[in-house]
């Protein structure tokens, strides 16, 4: 063996030994320190995601589904979108995890261990639709700033936990209470420990709903780390950013919560409609609450070719924020005519609803199947993009799939 090569190999093996030793002491690693092995990881393996999921951003991790991946009635982890604002926390120990209820409007500041939360309060399970406020942003023109989500930043999983209401009432809510704000342990991208990547919340009326949970389970198992283990606030029907992950503190505020991404233009739309590209002052931007009515065709995948004379089975889900979907329709002629199809009742309030239809095509050619849901207030999805807004939120335009009949 040539001496130089020998030394090189020996050096490499000693490096390997060092790296090995590091990982052995992984549990004692300093907070915020990322081991080399995790610096360029495979997100699909790391988060157990379907390989067809699309990575929009890797620092922080932002990954979305495609419509056909969301075909399950209850979304499995493998197809749930990931939206992170900071670094996924490391070294979480559920045994020492605590949740503190504080704020100007709490009667007595209280801290609960995870075990206390689980034993003291009744458990509830709900299927809850969580959609990123920016889902569909990629379609806005002029382009809106942020991750360019297409259609896949939505899911409806089954969440188990205790009612936020029960916990807040146990600590006591003063009559001055207006809003709750969550705080979590994820780290800001700049590394500044004084900065929170995100700290949002909701008005007391939403916080006190039966379905608003402090969840510790998703689809019957511990919540996966990237989705908020060990404790996540889940507020279905509202922008998913209200459903804070890795929550360790909830403040009962006597004013609208002013945490990171509550103010400025974040998760806000112009209070009054504006022309595309128009500048909007911060004070003219209003916080998004309930998400708008929307639907997705999850079967078949776009691009299906079928033979003439054969009916096409389609199916998917529809949801309407705080409301229920009252009517579901599809069009195969670019919105000229609409055919109503069946839509199931939700499993519980704020769960998405399943629709299906047998679509027949009059002759061969290129078609698009468009889906349109209408909510219980009679509001339907637009066929074109809804009102432009600077941050590109709330695009609920009809979902479309392409079909060829031969």
């Amino acid at each position, binding site marked *: 063996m040539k001496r130089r090569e020998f*030394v090189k190999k*020996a*050096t490499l093996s*000693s*490096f390997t030994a*060092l*790296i090995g030793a*590091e990982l052995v*002491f992984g549990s*004692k*690693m*300093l907070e915020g*320190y990322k081991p*080399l092995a995790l610096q360029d990881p495979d997100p699909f393996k790391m988060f157990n995601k379907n390989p067809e999921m699309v*990575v*929009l*951003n*890797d*620092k*922080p991790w932002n990954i979305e589904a495609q419509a056909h991946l969301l075909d399950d009635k209850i979304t499995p982890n493998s197809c749930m979108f990931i939206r992170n604002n900071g670094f996924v926390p490391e070294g979480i120990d559920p045994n020492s995890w605590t949740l503190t209820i504080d704020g100007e409007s709490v009667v007595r500041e209280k801290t609960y261990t995870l075990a206390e939360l689980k034993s003291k309060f009744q458990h509830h399970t709900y299927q809850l639709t969580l959609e990123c406020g920016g889902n569909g942003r990629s*379609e*806005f*023109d*002029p*382009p809106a*700033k*942020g*991750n*360019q989500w297409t259609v896949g930043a939505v899911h409806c999983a089954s969440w188990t936990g205790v009612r936020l209401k029960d916990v807040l009432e146990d600590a006591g809510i003063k009559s001055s209470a207006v809003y709750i704000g969550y705080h979590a342990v994820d780290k800001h*991208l*700049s*590394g*500044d420990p004084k*900065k929170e990547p995100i700290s949002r919340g909701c008005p007391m009326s939403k916080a006190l709903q039966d379905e608003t949970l402090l969840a510790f389970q998703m689809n019957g198992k511990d919540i996966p780390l990237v989705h908020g283990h060990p404790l996540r606030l889940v507020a279905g029907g509202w922008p998913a950013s209200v459903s804070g992950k890795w929550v360790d503190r909830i403040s009962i505020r006597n004013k609208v919560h002013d945490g990171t991404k509550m103010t400025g233009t974040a998760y806000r739309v112009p209070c009054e409609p504006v022309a595309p590209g128009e500048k909007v002052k911060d004070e003219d931007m209003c916080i998004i609450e309930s998400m708008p009515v929307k639907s997705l065709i999850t079967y*078949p*995948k*776009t*691009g*299906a*070719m*079928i033979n003439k004379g054969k009916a*096409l*089975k389609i199916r998917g889900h529809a949801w309407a924020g705080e409301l229920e979907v009252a009517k579901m329709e599809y069009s195969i002629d670019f919105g000229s005519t609409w055919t109503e199809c069946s839509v199931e009742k939700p499993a519980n309030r704020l769960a998405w609803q399943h629709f299906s239809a047998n679509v027949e095509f009059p002759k061969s050619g290129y078609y*698009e199947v468009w889906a349109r849901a209408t909510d219980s207030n009679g509001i339907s999805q637009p*066929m*074109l*993009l809804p009102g432009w807004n600077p941050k590109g939120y709330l695009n609920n*335009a009809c979902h*479309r799939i*392409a079909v*060829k009949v031969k």
Partner: protein
Amino acid sequence: MAREDVFREQVKKVYRLLMLILVFSVLTGGVLVYFTVNPGFLDFNQTTAELVEVPVEVDEDLIENGIHVRTGLVEADGLMEVVNNCTACHSAKIVTQNRMSAERWNATIKWMQETQNLWDLGGNQEIIVNYLVTNYPPSAKGRRMVLTDIEWYELKD
């Protein structure tokens, strides 16, 4: 003992010594680097294990087919200014996903400086913004785009 064996033994000794020196110097170097980055780690109240960051030799600025491999950014005037100032905190993917005018990029930079701990870019700001608007310009999408990139397949029941 044959002369050859003696020689072999000596080489082994020298080798062991060299390895010891090598490991020791890597450790010391690592500790020093770590100390520079994290001056607080010698605080004896902390009970964390001593960490050694091992530098891995990769060409951070490799360019292949006009693409800066580490970030995926297009090779053009201003590339390194963008790499050095815009990818320290966040991924280049959030940069290239966003298509904005110079005015909106400047406003975004101002927002990052006010809220996200971005430093003063000085003369680099113009270079960076020029790079972005030249290489990642916005394209008109209208009120709704046609469906593109459809992968056609036979649907079998």
